[in-house]
């Protein structure tokens, strides 16, 4: 277990800035502020440069001999490939509007976590290497030379950005530090500086089809296990299709949800929903991962991992794809998928077989979000719901960064929430919807060793949860993201004890009345339903 200070300590945040220029201040690596580096065998498997055993606390990072050339060549090539990168390097006016929008700055107070300064870490090299005037003026003009300390600083701060894009929303030019972080991480890959928590899942996903490295038979076992639980709770045996050809729909969701509490209850919710509808749907073990840690690695890796979705849809001969609750998965699907691996001409625009609604929003990718699908079902009164079964929950809703600022999926999950539970309260408006705060563990930073920084970054979210807990007695934070389901429980325990975390479709699963089910006495977590506390099985 990582050790970290109690909330009373951690909250002592100082937003003042040092007198010395940021270029002259060095932040030491210490346990809790960095993630462990990529392991050599993983780098080798992925064909990435400079595999070695090293630690950020080492003096010598064992960079390749010509590392400066490698980095600058990559820099040049990225500037040629991305207009975003070039424009963002050039037009920042350093107005500081983005400065206090980043959760890591709010919760930590380190000025280098102000998005503008995070970007300056890269911009200073851009100036120092590509602008003659800045080279002459040096530090005064924010230019510096590429030295080993710069690489170290990049590694620290570009793995302290969760690519949440909150800064981009407030920037008058839309400068997106997430985009800059992606570029910086690509530069760091050139010299073999990356983190294992991203690369190992990416490697797993490549071979086994999911981040956790669950092999097909084990996946099936876990699914059966969840079906056993559903049978215990509802009296109905569900027999989901897996890798079945000829179904109408392929369903893909993050693998985290089949494996860990509380994601498994959301998984059970999906199974119950599909059973209730009699949906002609199959799951896949080859494409058993919705998430895509390639997004946090490189455009190539992202494309490679994402490619399985269309591959599998084609092989199984489905008409369209339904996607589960996940944050960054949906940024990839909405903004990258069709560009990288489409057009998916062999699929059709999703049409709900139950309501007949055609989903034009997905007419290009042919991939529909489960929240859109379920909202439409509820609107058309196709679900038999008993919201009182969620009466033990007083809920609020956390918008995940990616569906909020990389898609705009804001209303659909709320509509579902309001229909499947009777007690729902919003957090303060500066912390939800497009202004939502990160869970502190996005972009591959949801690892154990990084917990202290995650908790710091989780302050804005945690504090907003605490606010509704104290005011309305909220005890459940619902979300539509598998990473959230892993990161928010410790965050709530720390900043807002007493609040649990659930998926939206867990609550849907609780509320749905299956045909011929037995009288339920517990919810999907096997906690007694309201009024059933004394009831025996």
């Amino acid at each position, binding site marked *: 277990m990582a050790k970290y200070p109690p909330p009373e300590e951690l909250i002592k945040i100082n937003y003042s800035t040092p007198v010395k220029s940021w270029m002259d201040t060095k932040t030491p690596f210490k346990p809790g502020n960095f993630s462990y580096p990529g392991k050599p065998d993983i780098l080798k498997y992925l064909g990435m440069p400079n595999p070695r055993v090293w630690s950020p606390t080492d003096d010598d990072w064992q960079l390749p001999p010509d590392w400066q050339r490698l980095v600058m060549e990559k820099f040049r090539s990225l500037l040629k490939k991305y*207009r975003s990168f070039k424009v963002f390097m*050039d037009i920042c006016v350093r107005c500081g509007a983005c400065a206090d929008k980043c959760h890591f700055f709010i919760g930590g107070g380190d000025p280098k976590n102000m998005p503008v300064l995070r970007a300056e870490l890269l911009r200073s090299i851009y100036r120092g290497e590509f602008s003659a005037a800045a080279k002459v003026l040096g530090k005064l003009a924010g230019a510096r030379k590429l030295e080993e300390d710069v690489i170290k600083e990049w590694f620290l701060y570009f793995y302290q950005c969760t690519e949440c894009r909150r800064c981009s929303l407030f920037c008058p*030019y839309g400068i997106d530090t997430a985009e800059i972080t992606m570029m910086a991480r690509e530069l760091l890959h050139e010299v073999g500086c990356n983190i294992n928590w991203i690369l190992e899942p990416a490697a797993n996903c490549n071979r086994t089809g999911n981040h956790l490295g669950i092999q097909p038979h084990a996946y099936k076992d876990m699914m059966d296990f969840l079906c056993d639980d559903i049978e215990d709770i509802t009296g109905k045996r569900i027999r989901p299709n897996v890798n079945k050809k000829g179904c109408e729909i392929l369903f893909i969701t993050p693998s985290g949800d089949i494996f860990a509490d509380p994601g498994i209850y959301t998984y059970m919710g999906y199974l119950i929903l599909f059973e209730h509808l009699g949906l002609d749907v199959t799951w896949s*073990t080859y494409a058993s991962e919705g998430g895509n840690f390639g997004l946090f690695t490189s455009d190539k890796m992202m494309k490679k991992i994402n490619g399985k979705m269309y591959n599998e849809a084609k092989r199984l001969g489905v008409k369209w794809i339904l996607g589960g609750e996940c944050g960054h998965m949906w940024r990839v699907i909405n903004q990258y998928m*069709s560009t990288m691996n489409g057009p998916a001409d062999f699929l059709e625009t999703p049409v709900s077989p139950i309501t007949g609604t055609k989903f034009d929003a*997905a007419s290009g990718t042919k991939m529909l979000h489960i929240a859109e699908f379920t909202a439409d079902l509820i609107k058309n009164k196709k679900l038999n719901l008993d919201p009182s079964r969620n009466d033990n929950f007083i809920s609020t809703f956390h918008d995940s960064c990616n569906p909020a600022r990389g898609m705009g999926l804001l*209303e659909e999950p709320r509509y579902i929430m309001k229909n499947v539970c009777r007690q729902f309260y919003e957090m303060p408006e500066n912390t939800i919807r*497009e202004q939502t705060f990160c869970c502190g563990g996005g972009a591959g930073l949801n690892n154990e060793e990084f917990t202290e920084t995650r908790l710091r970054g989780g302050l804005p979210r945690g504090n907003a949860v605490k606010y509704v807990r104290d005011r309305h007695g909220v005890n459940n934070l619902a979300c539509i993201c598998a990473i959230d389901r892993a990161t928010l429980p410790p965050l709530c325990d720390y900043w807002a004890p007493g609040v649990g975390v659930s998926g939206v479709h867990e609550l849907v699963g609780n509320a749905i009345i299956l045909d011929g089910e037995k009288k339920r006495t517990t919810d999907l977590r096997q906690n007694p339903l309201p009024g059933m506390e004394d009831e025996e099985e």
Partner: protein
Amino acid sequence: MAAFYSFLAVLALIVIPWLGVGMGMSALFGIALPYIAIIIFMVGFTMRIVDWAKSPVPFCIPTTGGQQKSLPWIKWSPWDNPVDKKGVFMRMVLEVLCFRSLFRNTSVKLQQDGPKVGYSSEKSLWLFSLIFHYCFLLILVRHLRFFLMPIPGAVGIAEFLDSILQIGLPVMYQSDALIMVGLLFLLARRVFDGKVRYITLMQDYFPLFLLLGIVLTGVWMRYVVKVDVIAVKELTMSIVTLRPHMPTAPIDPSVYAHLTLVCALFIYFPFSKLMHMGGIFLSPTRVLPNMSRRAQWVNPWNDPAVKAHSYEAYEDDFREKMIEAGLPVDKKA
């Protein structure tokens, strides 16, 4: 230090022409420099824009600021989350004319007991920035009086509106005072707000001092020495009609200082952050519609050689186990 150097640079840009004109170099500052400045500005500005515009936009990455277009009964935010050119146009109109994103600005307050993190609306940057930019625009329009013959009606309207308060003689333009207020506020936050001071570089102070210098010399000319406007117009018209000559009536040296500062602004513009003027129209997170799930967005450098690990390879790896678990396989063992 950075502020001091920027200040010195601007001071030099005032003193040099002032002295230079005294030494008989008025043609250099009155004719040669303006031509050089205009050419550098036009060529530089165009080259920057072309350079940006030529670089590819591989992915459709708008930052969505509201509800997506979804089911017909869900209220959509067409301007914060546009799906087509029309929506993007509205989004950009709001950004460029109203500084929409800056309008959202908040400021964090941390209360130790509780603890409580609060976000208060913080519109001062938006307000003063807007004041500065609009005054700058207005002043620019008013200056057309010196470069056009006959003077377009719009210029007259701008002058009329700007002097509607009828203060002083010659009547005071409100924009002259307001632009000072705007610039001084922007400068003050760079000096007094710790966070902003920390990120501020020389190239952030310089344009503020430069613009202040332009305004101050302008005010000096108009309200203090009351320069010979006819003579100035003779000079400016000779420049735009490409028949440059020095006017016969003498011109106060402050005019040359003002002109030199403006030329410095023009020369500096294409190489600086002032290019945000063009960049905002090329910023992918703002000018792209959220359409990549509806239709195909093409990446010109998409590499078809990058392929997913194939199903066949996957099945080869796990076939025995899949059969044992009762999962269907394509090839029997």
